[in-house]
C-alpha cells in the first residue's frame, strides 16, 4: 500500500473524467481547504474563512456549474452516463478534507437534479436558473427545504407515507403558487442558499402522490424568512436553520414538472443523496487512514511501532480493510445509479434500487461510526485532539449517519425490499 489512493475501486467502473479531473480537484482542495480546516469549527456562524474556499471551488473552479448543459455555460454532466460516478468522485475528494463542505456543494446540486436528469427534464426552468450558477465566480448555493418541525424525516419515507404528513402548502392562485409553511435544518439554509427546492402539498393530509408538489423558491422572494444557523457538534461549513414561508408567491411554472411527476422526480433524490453520503464517508475514512498511518508508524507500544504489534495491527488492519470494502460498495452503489439506462439497470425510483442503495449507505455509515471511534481509541490520549483531524471527522460523520431519515429509515427501506414487508 502506497497511500490512500490504493484503496480498491472496481476498475471497470471508473469514468473517463476521473483521472484528470480528480487530480485538479485534489490540488484545489489541498490548497484551499486542508490548511484551514482546523479553524472551521470556530467559524460556524460567520464563514469568514470558509466562504473564500467555497468561492474558489464552486465559483472559480466552477463546480456549481457542473450539472447544467454546455449551452447554458455548464459542464453537461447530467447528460453523461456517469453522473453518479462523477458525483461519487467529487464527494469523496471533498469529503476527505471536510464533509461539511462536501455536503454544502452536493446539496446545491440536489434540487437541480429534479429538473436536470432524464426522464425529468424541464428546459424552461433550467434556462431560468442556469445563469444564477453559471455566470458568476462567487459560490452560489441551493437547498432542499424538506424537513418540517413535526414530521422529522417523514418526507423521505415516501415509500410508506406518500407525502401524507407534509404541512407546507402550495395553493395555485392565477398563475402563481402561494406557499405557506415552516421548514428547518436543510443544508445551506441559515442564510446560505439563493434558491430553495420546496416539497409541499397541494392538498394537506393527502397520500395521493399527485398532490405532492416540488416548487422552486428564490431565497429573496417576499415572505421568505430565515433564521440564523444552529450551533452543532460538527460540520461548520454546512449552515442549517429555520425557513418560514409566509404567503410566498412564485410563478406557476416554478413547479418542477406537475402532478405525479414531481413526486417521482423528487424521489430520485434519495439514491443521489445516499450515494453522495457514501462518498463523503469513504472520503473521510481515507483521510483518517492517512493520519492513522502516520500515528501508528511513529508512536510505539513496547518500544516498537504500534503497527508492528500484532494486536494493534489487527485493529488497524480491520479499519483499513473496512475502508477498502466501503469504497468498493460505494462505487457499486454509484454504478447501480448509473445503470439506470442500461438494459439490465433499474429506474432510480424502483424499490429494489432504493432498498439496496439505502442498505449500502447504512452499512457504510455504521462502519464509519465504528471505525472513527476505534481510530480515536488507537490514538488514545491524542484521539480527541483536533490536531490529528480524526476527532473532527468523528464528529462530522455521525451527522451523516443521522441525516436523511437516519439509520432506522435505511433499515426499514432495506427490510421492506428484501422481505417484501408491507407495514414496516
Amino acid at each position, binding site marked *: 500500500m502506497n497511500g490512500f489512493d490504493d484503496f480498491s475501486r472496481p476498475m471497470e467502473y471508473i469514468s473517463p473524467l476521473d483521472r484528470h479531473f480528480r487530480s485538479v480537484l485534489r490540488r484545489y482542495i489541498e490548497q484551499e481547504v486542508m490548511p484551514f480546516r*482546523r479553524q472551521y469549527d470556530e467559524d460556524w456562524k460567520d464563514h469568514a474563512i470558509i466562504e473564500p474556499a467555497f468561492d474558489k471551488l464552486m465559483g472559480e473552479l466552477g463546480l456549481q456549474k457542473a450539472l447544467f448543459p454546455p449551452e447554458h455555460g455548464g459542464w453537461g454532466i447530467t447528460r453523461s452516463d456517469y453522473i453518479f460516478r462523477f458525483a461519487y468522485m467529487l464527494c469523496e475528494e471533498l469529503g476527505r478534507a471536510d464533509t461539511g463542505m462536501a455536503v454544502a456543494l452536493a446539496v446545491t446540486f440536489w434540487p437541480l437534479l429534479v429538473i436536470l436528469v432524464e426522464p425529468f427534464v424541464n428546459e424552461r426552468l433550467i434556462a431560468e436558473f442556469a445563469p444564477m450558477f453559471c455566470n458568476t465566480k462567487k459560490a452560489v448555493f441551493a437547498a432542499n427545504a424538506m424537513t418540517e418541525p413535526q414530521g422529522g424525516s417523514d418526507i423521505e419515507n415516501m415509500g410508506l407515507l406518500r407525502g401524507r404528513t407534509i404541512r407546507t402548502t402550495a395553493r395555485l392562485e392565477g398563475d402563481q403558487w402561494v406557499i405557506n409553511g415552516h421548514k428547518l435544518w436543510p443544508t445551506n439554509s441559515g442564510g446560505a442558499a439563493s434558491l430553495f427546492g420546496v416539497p409541499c402539498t397541494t392538498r394537506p393530509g393527502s397520500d395521493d402522490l399527485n398532490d405532492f408538489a416540488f416548487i422552486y423558491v428564490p431565497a429573496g422572494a417576499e415572505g421568505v424568512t430565515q433564521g440564523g444557523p444552529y*450551533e452543532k457538534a460538527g460540520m461548520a461549513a454546512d449552515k442549517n436553520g429555520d425557513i418560514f414561508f409566509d404567503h410566498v408567491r412564485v410563478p406557476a411554472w416554478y413547479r418542477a414538472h406537475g402532478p405525479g411527476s414531481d413526486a417521482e422526480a423528487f424521489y430520485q433524490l434519495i439514491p443521489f443523496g445516499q450515494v453522495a453520503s457514501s462518498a463523503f464517508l469513504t472520503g473521510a475514512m481515507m483521510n483518517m487512514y492517512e493520519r492513522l498511518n502516520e500515528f501508528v508508524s511513529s508512536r510505539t507500544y*513496547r518500544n516498537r511501532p504500534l503497527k508492528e504489534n500484532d494486536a494493534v495491527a489487527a485493529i488497524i488492519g480491520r479499519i483499513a480493510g473496512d475502508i477498502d470494502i466501503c469504497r468498493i460498495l460505494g462505487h457499486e452503489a454509484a454504478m447501480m445509479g448509473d445503470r439506470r439506462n442500461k438494459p439490465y439497470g433499474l429506474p432510480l425510483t424502483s424499490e429494489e434500487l432504493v432498498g439496496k442503495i439505502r442498505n449500502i449507505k447504512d452499512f457504510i455509515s455504521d462502519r464509519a461510526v465504528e471505525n472513527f471511534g476505534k481510530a480515536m481509541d488507537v490514538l488514545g490520549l491524542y484521539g*480527541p485532539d483536533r*490536531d490529528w483531524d480524526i*476527532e473532527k471527522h468523528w464528529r462530522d460523520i455521525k451527522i451523516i449517519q*443521522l441525516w436523511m431519515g437516519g439509520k432506522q429509515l435505511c433499515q426499514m427501506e432495506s427490510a421492506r425490499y428484501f422481505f417484501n414487508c408491507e407495514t*414496516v
Partner: protein
Amino acid sequence: MIGNLEGLFLMPEKGIDEETQGVVTLVRRWADKEVIGDRLEYRRNYPSRFDEKRKTLFLAMGLQRLAVPEEHGGFGWHTPGRMRHVLRVLTEIGRADCSTGVLLAMNCALFTVVTRFCDGRNGLTDSLASSYLEDEMKTASCILTGPGHAGRETPLFKGRSILARAAAAGESATVSGEDLRPLAAGLAADRFLIVCADSDGSPCLALVPVDAPGIARSERVKAAGLDALANADISLDAVTIPKDHLILDQDAVSYLSACLNLMLGGVSLGAGLNFFEIVSDWSDSRVIKGGTVLKENPLCASVLADTAEEIACAGFLLHDLAGIMPLTDHPGPSGMEAVYTYSAMIGAKAQQGIMRAINRGLELMGSAGYAREWHAEKHWRDVKTIQSIMCGTGAEAPVKMDIARFFYNCSEI
C-alpha cells in the same frame, strides 16, 4: 439521581449508609438545580460560566475534600471499601457535567493513592490535605503512560511507555520529561501526579506542583470534549521536588490506574444516565411515521432498549468493580494484579458500553442529536473523550494484553 432512575437502574449492592446517602442526595440536588434544570442558559460561553457551579460543589459543599482522610478534616472516602460510595457521587456529578466529574475523580485518585502508599510519610498527606482544606479550588492533573516514539527506547509499565523520568538525590528528587500529555486539565491544575520511571527504569509516581521552576506548557489543546477543562502538553526540565513526593512502588501505579478506571467510569455512567433521561423525554414526545409516538415503534423501542441495557450493565459492572477494590488489601501481588486487570477490563468495557448507549440513542434524535441546544451531543463528546484518554494508546490492545497476562500467564506480550 432522580428517584425514578434509581427504580430503573438497579445496583447489585446492599443499601448504603445514611451519611453516604446524604452526600449523594446533596450532589443530586446540585446537579438538578444548578446544571440540568438550567441548561439552556449555558448555551453561550459554556465553559467559563460553569466555573462558578463547580466552586459551589468543591468549596461550599466541600466535595474537594471527599477523599481527604477524616483525621485531616476530609470526608475520609479514600479507602478501598469507600470506592463504591465515591463511584455513586461521581455518577451524580457526571449526570450534570463530565468535566467537573473528571476533576473530582483526579482529586480523589490522588488522595486514595497517596494515603495508601505514603503510610510512613504523613508529611506528604498532611501538606496535601491542608492545601485542599483551603477555600480555593484545587485540581490534580494526572499524567499516565502513553505511546512512545519510534526509535526511542523507554522504560515500560505493562507495555506502555513511561515518558517521564524521576531520580532521587538526597532529600530531593528531580523529574524530567518532554511533551507529556495529561489526561485533562493540564492548564488548570495546581499539581501533577506523574507516572515516571525511576533510575532503574521501574515505574513510580511523582507529585509535582505546577509552579515549580522548569515546567513549560504548550498552547491549549483543542479537544473533542471536556470543553470546560483546559489541557496542554507539559515539559519538565529537571524539576526539583521533595523526595517524599516520590512514591517508589510499582503497585502505586497499578492502583492509580485502577482508581481512575473506576472513577472515570462513574463519571461516564452519570453522563449516560442523563443521556437516558434526555432520550426518554425525546422519545415520549416525538411522532414518526405520521402518528406513532417514537417509543411505541418497535424498532425505535429496540434502539431505546439498547441504550438502557448498555447503561444498566455498565452500572452493574462498575459496582462489581467497586466491590472487589478491597481485594487490594490482600497481601501479595495477586490482589492488586487482579484488581488492576479487572479495572482495566471493566473500565474499558463500561466506557465502550456507555458510548454505544449514546451512539444508539443519538440515532433516534436526528438533528436534535447533534444540535448543541439539546446537550445530548455534549455527553457524546465528553464520554468519547474520557474513553479515548483512558485507552492510553492502541485502542483496546494494551488492555487486552493486561487481561491475557493475568488470565493466561503470558509473559512476552
